[in-house]
């Protein structure tokens, strides 16, 4: 009675899927990086890599950009999180809502607009030059990448840190105050250490995201970083060039290391500190002048944070925008152009992201059930493997798929690697970790007695899952679906490698291609705005669903 044949069959299917579309392709990449071409193992490709100054520089640059982005994102997120959780004032809700907005636009979309706003001849520098006679090189080279990535990914730290701060029982703080700690001491010795898990989780995520990002450097014309180098080697020299694989292995290794370091930093630190009747740091009211100062600071930050969106929007409705503070005139023709030429992109995106998200939810629910409700041997491995996808950059997965599936031909002679379904699977694998966590959290909320009651009344395992477990998990599953959907909808790195023809391409690819030419920027931005609206609506929906779920479970907890 430890497991049923049905459970074993499901586990086997899941294992086969993960093996075929995650383990084997990534394994192929690693294999090629270490292969001497004659069946032996060699480090010569790695030596080549480190002997070439361009690659050494790329390696250093990727690190530098990821590290600096984490630093600046922390500097941005830390005060915002602390002030909003800690104090009662009007801006708090504004930050918590507007602060997540950068997440709903992939950084490469905003990158062009950022150049127009903050570049050498961008709005800001034109104004500065005109009135003060100097300019700031915010967008030059690596600075630009760091700036764009920071603005886009700091919400990961903000969200995680705010949640962690909100989870600190005020009694913890009061106990420290009671012992005589206050102000900076209180923050440094009690509040921050308790919130550390949230911060570390967010910071690790930012590091990985920036390290993996391909679109932003490409759009900003920065190629001396790892992801662009991998992409360029594979697309210009070909699938046989080992350097692309070496770079892939290095990227995977450092992403894994970042995940591992964050797990290590949190190991053995159980910081769930909300006790009965507790909840959240004590909130203090701000004096009017403090309130004004805080608001001013927040507005400044929000203007910077929202500038990519403003820029993209202006770009999408501007006629010509070059060497001027604002566009010369305004028009809707870019939108018309997009709807005339490129509705295929939108349709493809809806199809691909929808399918990928559906796959994620089904797999996520199945794995969650196996982990939490069975004692099947190897169930943890499924979890680990699925979660490890987090550490596989899109470029690497793309290269792996090309390598593994290029030789496989469909009945019509097309290589499997460029079949659109492979793109869907790549999205599904890339987003699986998020959907999985969402499903696991949802199943955690379902008290096991709910299922035992059904079994007690005569329902078998399958019926119980169908009639009790899935309906009760529905909110969390839907939230997982939306999360997968919105992030898959703007995925670029794997897309760039796996799209073979325009007819199969999704929005992200379309935006990227448009943005390559000056004339295409308008339509590209219009497509970007459409993507943002799409993703924004999805994010809002998932937020509402999660809130409703939380509200309902709090109702149940209160009975």
């Amino acid at each position: 009675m430890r497991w049923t044949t049905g459970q074993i069959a499901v586990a086997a299917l899941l294992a086969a899927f993960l093996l075929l579309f995650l383990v084997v392709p990534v394994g192929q990449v690693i294999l090629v990086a270490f292969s001497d071409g004659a069946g032996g193992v060699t480090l010569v490709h790695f030596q080549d890599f480190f002997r070439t100054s361009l690659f050494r520089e790329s390696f250093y640059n990727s690190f530098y950009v990821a590290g600096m982005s984490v630093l600046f994102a922390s500097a941005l997120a830390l005060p915002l999180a602390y002030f909003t959780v800690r104090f009662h004032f009007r801006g708090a809700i504004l930050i918590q809502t507007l602060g997540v907005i950068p997440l709903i636009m992939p950084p490469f979309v905003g990158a062009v607009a950022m150049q127009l706003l903050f570049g050498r001849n961008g709005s800001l520098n034109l104004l500065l030059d005109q009135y003060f006679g100097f300019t700031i090189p915010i967008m030059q080279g690596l600075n630009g990448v760091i700036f764009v990535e920071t603005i886009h990914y700091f919400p990961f730290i903000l969200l995680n840190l705010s949640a962690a701060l909100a989870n600190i029982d005020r009694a913890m703080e009061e106990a420290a105050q009671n012992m005589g700690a206050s102000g900076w001491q209180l923050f440094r010795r009690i509040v921050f250490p308790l919130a550390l898990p949230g911060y570390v989780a967010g910071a690790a995520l930012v590091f990985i995201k920036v390290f993996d990002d391909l679109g932003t450097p490409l759009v900003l014309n920065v190629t001396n970083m790892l992801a662009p180098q991998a992409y360029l080697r594979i697309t210009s020299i070909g699938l046989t060039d080992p350097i692309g694989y070496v770079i892939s292995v290095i990227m995977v290794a450092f992403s894994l290391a970042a995940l591992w370091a964050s797990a290590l930093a949190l190991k053995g630190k159980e910081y769930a500190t909300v006790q009965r009747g507790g909840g959240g740091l004590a909130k203090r009211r701000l004096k009017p002048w403090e309130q004004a100062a805080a608001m001013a600071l927040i507005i400044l930050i929000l203007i910077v944070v929202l500038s990519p969106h403003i820029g993209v929007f202006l770009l999408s409705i501007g006629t010509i925008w070059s060497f001027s503070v604002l566009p010369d005139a305004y028009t809707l023709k870019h939108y018309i152009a997009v709807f005339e030429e490129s509705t295929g992109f939108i349709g493809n995106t809806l199809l691909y992201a929808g399918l990928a998200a559906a796959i994620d939810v089904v797999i996520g629910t199945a794995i969650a059930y196996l982990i939490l409700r069975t004692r099947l041997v190897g169930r943890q491995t499924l979890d680990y493997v699925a979660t490890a996808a987090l550490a596989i950059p899109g470029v690497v997965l793309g290269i792996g798929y090309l390598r593994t599936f290029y030789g496989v031909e469909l009945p019509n002679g097309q290589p499997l690697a460029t079949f659109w379904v492979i793109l869907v699977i790549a999205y599904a694998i890339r987003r699986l970790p998020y959907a999985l966590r969402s499903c696991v959290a949802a199943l955690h909320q379902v008290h096991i007695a709910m299922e035992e009651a059904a079994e007690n009344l005569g329902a078998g395992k399958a019926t119980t899952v169908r009639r009790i477990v899935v309906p009760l998990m529905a909110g969390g599953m839907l939230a997982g679906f939306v999360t997968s959907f919105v992030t898959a909808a703007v995925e670029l790195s794997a897309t760039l490698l796996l799209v073979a023809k325009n007819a199969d391409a999704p929005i992200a690819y379309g935006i990227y291609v448009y943005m390559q030419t000056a004339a295409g920027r308008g339509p590209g931005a219009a497509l970007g705005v459409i993507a943002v609206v799409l993703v924004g609506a999805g994010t809002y929906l998932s937020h509402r669903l999660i809130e409703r779920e939380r509200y309902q479970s709090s109702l149940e907890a209160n009975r």
Partner: protein
Amino acid sequence: MSATAPLSVQGVGVTIENISVAFGETRVLENVSLTVNPGEFFAFLGPSGCGKSTLLRLIAGFGEAQNGRVLIGDTEISQLPPWKRNVGMVFQSYALWPHLTIWDNVAFGLEQRRVPREELARRVEAALDLVGLKAYAKRRPAQLSGGQQQRVALARTLVIEPQVLLLDEPLSNLDAKLRVQMRHEIVELQRQLGVTAIYVTHDQEEANAIADRMAILHDRVIQQIGVPMTMYDNPANAFVAQFLGIANVLEGELLAREQLFRTRLGVDLALPKNLAFNNRGRRVMFRPQAIALTGASGSAPVSGAQFQGRVRDAEFLGNIMRYRIAVGDQLLLADVPHRRGESYFPANTAVDLAIEPEQLVLLPD
């Protein structure tokens, strides 16, 4: 609640034979055996972590026993999955499904049994009527109070006409007043239907009040099985004595021939006439209300009293005054019923204590 039983339940016995359960290295139950008679209201009583819930869940088919078997009537059910057992269980958290209406919650078990539509409707209605919630059928669990949810959980279990009704601390989520009311309702329902019921609780008052018989579990084994009052008066060991109420325990030695117990303080206590001296007890037990307390008159105890003591403190509990009395190096508890206007012995008062032989229980070593 209606007068006649609309659901037909056959009370059958439950037999548990040599059940042992371990979770990894932790042994939870060891060679537990007991028999529950048909139609009986039986309780598993014990402190938290004693394995009483584990044992109950085992009857329902949740969890695994390392060895032993469970029989319902004469049929062994140890190998059956939970959904084929036909034992109804009421969960501590009620486990009402929040996404289904009250009606759908109650109908679930009948749907699983493919009961024809008309009969299903009749039985669901009867079950809801039985617990007085017919008017609430269209609501959802979250819209009901704790007591109402408890009734729904009962109706949902009873509607399948289970052979045995299992209740896992069903009242622990209710407030004190409702708890007493619900336990009356549960007993009434059980008597009305004649269903065999097994009730798990850590509250000895609850078990005493409702159970025909009960088993006290502690340290992985059954400490004693019996009728509540018999066990209170004749606990099998010190644990049972102390778990079922307050026990004053005196150490000393048994003088079997003289039918005396000589306490460590040197006082000889007469033992009940009909006591069997097969075990050599070194401890004697009596309840706080067995002590007769009088104000001390002089250097020797008043006639009939055995001990002289001094009141350490007095706790007023409403219906009784509870004294802690220092006797030699020991503290004894004495309960004296309180009646309006009566005075009491303040701290430091010297008192004499008398205990009748019939109130003494010799505890085995």
